[in-house]
């Protein structure tokens, strides 16, 4: 395939970033917004075209005679050569998952660009906002098409930085500043693991290249056999550390704390970065390295356990949040954890790695309906100027479009057929039950909780009781509603895509079989969740309060997110800041600098002491001279005798 179009997919957002970033201040808001949106629109078209080429052209570059989808490098240029083997290349890799991401990212990004024209209207720094969006799109696209792990790391850092910039968009708000800082530092910490993982892996395999690593992992990894580092097998260590990077970006426990705070950013940004695209980078990373992970089943177990715990934790916490964006944030964490679990249980012997396919499928559908939910939440916040559901209620009458689309989103995430979430979640549950019943039941419970908390906020927002609105809420303007409608439509029908045809582990087609037992159970659980929510929150009543009172400590704990933030605060502030940084700074000033100053003082004192010998008092000189002379005489005499 010609490299022009793929190159343009990356170059246009970058160019747009530079253009808007450097010249944005000279433009009007409208020009900048339209320019950014048009740029993204072009990218959207180009990447649809590319993905279409990949899936449907039948080009032998992309699909073998036997119908296996291939990994194809469109271009790959040397960027930085560390050693002859270890070279960072910047390239463009097309394979089933990157082609899928080429659909997801520009779609969501374009929707968000469009939506923001309305949502961010009149905000100070509008041009800057679009510049950052472009930067993010560039980095995210660069990340998914990375041909080697280091390219991925580069763009990984770049998405982190653009996320930082966008979270802190309202830089005058201290909460936004600290949220952005937190997001960056937590993910940076995770990236440290990623980096060390890369260092270890690349040292032993002498390659960064994904294709080399994944096409025949057994032989590439042969050199790691038996190698240990501080008592662990290096390979396990490397894979776990690389996963740590993914944990950070994808907000897995215990590195999840930044994501809820990241909701301080503008809502469209939350939709784009913190719901649909960047946060799934961790999942994408594991999927990318999946053949290597398969070589180390213990690391996949690790992925599974982390994922499962996070899923439950986030779902429980989501039930007790007041801020609707926080609810959505925890729901995102929980759903990403679903994907992680799904990857964790993927084994060739279990439905031909169904988990892998299911995870990617869920990534796809989740991106759509979660972006929808966030944009819907944005419309709500725009209308009532508050993030809390307590300021909302009965909005179905005022905001019909938002209501319907939000409901579709909720149904999709709850896994009610025929909405998209049902199909993908069902595949995940099938995969999990195939692996172990225990985790299957666990994840089913989480799915039930998902339905409950989503409908909880749905009812609280759109039903419940109507507070006094200062001015009548209404749907957003057309540029805001249009993305909602489009995404709602996609969320409705996306489940019917034969995903197994397009994205599977090794590119072989996989026929999805509906497992009616699992499907039935999950739908039933979801319905139970929904009805429970309806029972509690349809109309104003005191049942929710009574329920919360009945186990107050649990409610408080969940509301405070099980005190993770406090724990982190304690570790970072009390232990690291007060326990390490301050003592070191003190040590530096007092001991190191003190000893240097001490040296100076001693010299000074000594010179003062010696200075007294040069007193100008002749008699003292003579006395000293005499003593010296006599001593010399004695010594001489001593020697002579």
């Amino acid at each position, binding site marked *: 395939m010609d490299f022009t179009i793929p190159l343009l997919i990356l170059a246009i957002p970058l160019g747009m970033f530079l253009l808007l970033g450097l010249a944005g201040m000279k433009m009007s808001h409208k020009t900048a917004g339209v320019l950014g949106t048009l740029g993204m629109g072009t990218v959207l078209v180009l990447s649809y075209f590319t993905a279409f080429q990949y899936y449907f052209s039948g080009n032998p570059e992309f699909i073998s005679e036997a119908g296996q989808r291939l990994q194809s490098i469109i271009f790959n240029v040397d960027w930085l050569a560390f050693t002859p083997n270890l070279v960072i290349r910047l390239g463009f890799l097309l394979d089933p998952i990157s082609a899928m991401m080429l659909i997801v990212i520009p779609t969501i990004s374009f929707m968000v660009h469009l939506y923001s024209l309305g949502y961010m209207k009149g905000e100070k720094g509008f041009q800057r906002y679009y510049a950052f969006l472009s930067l993010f799109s560039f980095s995210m696209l660069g990340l998914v098409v990375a041909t080697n792990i280091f390219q991925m790391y580069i763009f990984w850092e770049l998405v982190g930085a653009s996320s930082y910039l966008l979270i802190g968009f309202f830089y005058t708000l201290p909460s936004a500043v600290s949220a952005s800082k937190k997001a960056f530092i937590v993910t940076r910490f995770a990236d440290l693991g990623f980096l060390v993982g890369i260092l270890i892996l690349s040292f032993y395999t002498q390659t960064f290249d994904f294709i080399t690593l994944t096409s025949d992992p057994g032989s590439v990894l042969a050199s790691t056999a038996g190698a240990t580092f501080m008592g662990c097998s290096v390979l396990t260590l490397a894979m776990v550390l690389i996963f740590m990077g993914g944990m950070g970006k994808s907000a897995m426990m215990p590195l999840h704390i930044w994501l809820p705070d990241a909701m301080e950013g503008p809502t469209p940004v939350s939709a784009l970065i913190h719901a649909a695209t960047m946060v799934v980078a961790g999942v994408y990373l594991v999927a990318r390295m999946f053949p290597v992970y398969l070589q180390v089943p213990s690391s996949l177990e690790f992925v599974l356990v982390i994922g499962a715990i996070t899923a439950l934790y986030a779902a429980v916490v989501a039930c007790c949040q007041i801020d609707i964006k926080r609810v959505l944030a925890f729901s995102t964490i929980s759903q990403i954890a679903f994907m992680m679990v799904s990857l964790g249980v993927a084994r060739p012997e279990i439905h031909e790695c169904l988990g892998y396919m299911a995870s990617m499928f869920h990534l796809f559908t989740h991106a759509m309906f979660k972006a929808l939910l966030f944009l819907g939440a944005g419309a709500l916040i725009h209308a009532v100027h508050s993030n809390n559901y307590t300021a909302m209620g009965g909005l179905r009458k005022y905001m019909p479009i938002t209501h319907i689309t939000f409901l579709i989103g909720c149904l999709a995430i709850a896994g009610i057929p025929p909405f998209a979430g049902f199909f993908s979640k069902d595949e995940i549950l099938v995969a999990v039950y195939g692996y172990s019943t225990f985790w299957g039941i666990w994840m089913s419970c989480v799915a039930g909780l998902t339905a409950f908390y989503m409908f909880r906020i749905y009812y609280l927002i759109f039903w419940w009781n109507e507070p006094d609105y200062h001015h009548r809420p209404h749907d957003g303007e057309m540029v805001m509603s249009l993305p909602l409608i489009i995404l709602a439509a996609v969320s409705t029908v996306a489940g019917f895509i034969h995903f197994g045809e397009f994205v599977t582990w090794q590119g072989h087609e996989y026929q999805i079989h509906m497992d009616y037992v699992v499907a039935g159970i999950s739908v039933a659980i979801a319905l139970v969740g929904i009805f429970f929510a309806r029972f509690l929150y349809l109309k104003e009543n005191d049942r929710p309060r009574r329920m919360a009172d009945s186990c107050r400590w649990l409610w408080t704990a969940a509301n405070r997110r099980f005190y993770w933030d406090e724990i982190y605060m304690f570790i970072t502030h009390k232990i690291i800041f007060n326990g390490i940084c301050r003592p070191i700074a003190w040590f530096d000033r007092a001991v190191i600098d003190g000893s240097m100053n001490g040296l100076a003082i001693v010299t000074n004192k000594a010179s003062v002491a010696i200075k007294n010998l040069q007193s100008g008092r002749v008699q003292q000189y003579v*006395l000293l001279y*005499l003593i010296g002379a*006599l001593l010399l005489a*004695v010594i001489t*005499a001593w020697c002579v*005798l």
Partner: protein
Amino acid sequence: MESAGSIIMYWIIALSIVIFSVLTVTTRRILRSATFLLFTLFAAAALYFKLDYEFLGAVQIAVYAGGIVVLFVFSILLTSHPGHKSERLVSHRKWIGVLAALAALVVTGGALISRCGLACASLPEMSNPTMKTIGAAMMGTGSEQYLLPFEAISVLLLACIIGGVVVARKR
């Protein structure tokens, strides 16, 4: 074996050297100190005479007693009030002085005693150096002749004259 007169002479000289030296440094009146110095210098001159260096003794009397001590007296009169006593010595100062002097005495005396054989050389016979020999030695350039030091001293004295004038000149 020397004559009794010579021995008595010696004792007189030696005792006056010792006594006047001690008095020179112990008296608290500066003018007396200068006077005792004069006596010491005379005693030294007497010693030179006794050792048959008449010329040297003469020079000692002329230069030291006649020149230097007069200078001292003048300067004392210029710089201090008559009858002025120097203040009493601080005791630690005195002790430092005594200790230093004693140390020098002990070390040097020890050296003297340890070289007893040398120290016990008795007076050999010597003919008195005549003025002629002294003059020849001072003006000659040969072996054991001292024209160069003589000239150097002359230059030094000249420099001292000029320097003294410059330093003492009223500004």
